[in-house]
């Protein structure tokens, strides 16, 4: 019986990771738009709080991480996905921190808490993928050919 963390069961795997796919695709779109036209992000706390080159790295993580995470789910490649989710996690943590720095703990508290929730979900997904990878590595399938003397 396959689990929803086993990429060979495509439907269950993608169903379980729907949140990652959606968040990855949205992040990819927003990050790419921000990289193309920085003026779209003038109200962003991260852009206001961070220096220019850190913002570029931040947006790259958002765009590339989102693309990798979504692609990992859709192409059933957990390794690709885990890299993307780590990048998204960094993006979310930095964004939450920037919101706190920019708006203060009261003004930005709710948004920062939402970011923390997203980070929690992303971290949970990483844990799930690690667990699944380890379980897969430890599977012992005895690859012994059938006895030809008895099956002849």
């Amino acid at each position, binding site marked *: 019986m396959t689990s929803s963390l086993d990429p060979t069961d495509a439907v269950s795997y993608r169903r379980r990771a729907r949140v990652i796919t959606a968040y990855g695709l949205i992040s990819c779109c927003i990050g790419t738009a921000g990289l193309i036209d920085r003026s779209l992000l003038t109200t962003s706390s991260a852009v206001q709080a*961070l220096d220019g080159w850190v913002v570029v790295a931040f947006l790259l993580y958002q765009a590339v991480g989102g693309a990798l995470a979504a692609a990992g789910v859709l192409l059933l490649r957990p390794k690709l996905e885990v890299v993307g989710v780590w990048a998204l996690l*960094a993006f979310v943590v930095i964004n939450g921190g920037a919101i706190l720095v920019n708006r203060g703990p009261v003004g930005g508290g709710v948004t920062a808490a939402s970011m923390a929730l997203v980070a929690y979900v992303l971290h949970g997904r*990483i844990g799930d993928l690690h667990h699944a990878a*380890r379980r897969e590595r430890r599977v012992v*399938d005895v690859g*012994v050919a059938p006895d030809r003397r008895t099956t002849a």
Partner: protein
Amino acid sequence: MTGLLAVTSEQVTNYGALAALIAALAAALNSIGVIGPNRRKIVEDTNSTATSRATAALESALTRVEADNTRLREDVDQLEAKTTECLERLRIVTVERDSLAARIERMNAAFAAAGIEPPA
């Protein structure tokens, strides 16, 4: 003093963000087994799995050989019993043949004594 604190806060934010980006990159590489402790774990797991697979294959082969031996032992037992039975039947047939030969010999002697040609 306030200016100094403001500058420090900005630097902290920037360097914190940079550290987070680098840490995420390192964590991602660790996750896929390129660097870090997960790489060692993957190697250990792979070795452990290979050992388990080899052990299981050996056990399977051994079980098969044991089953073959059992089957062979049964065949040999059966053959031995059959051989013993055949030898016994051969002994009986031999005794019977000797007895019949003796009787024929006696009859021939009786015919000869009576001066009659024994039947062919």
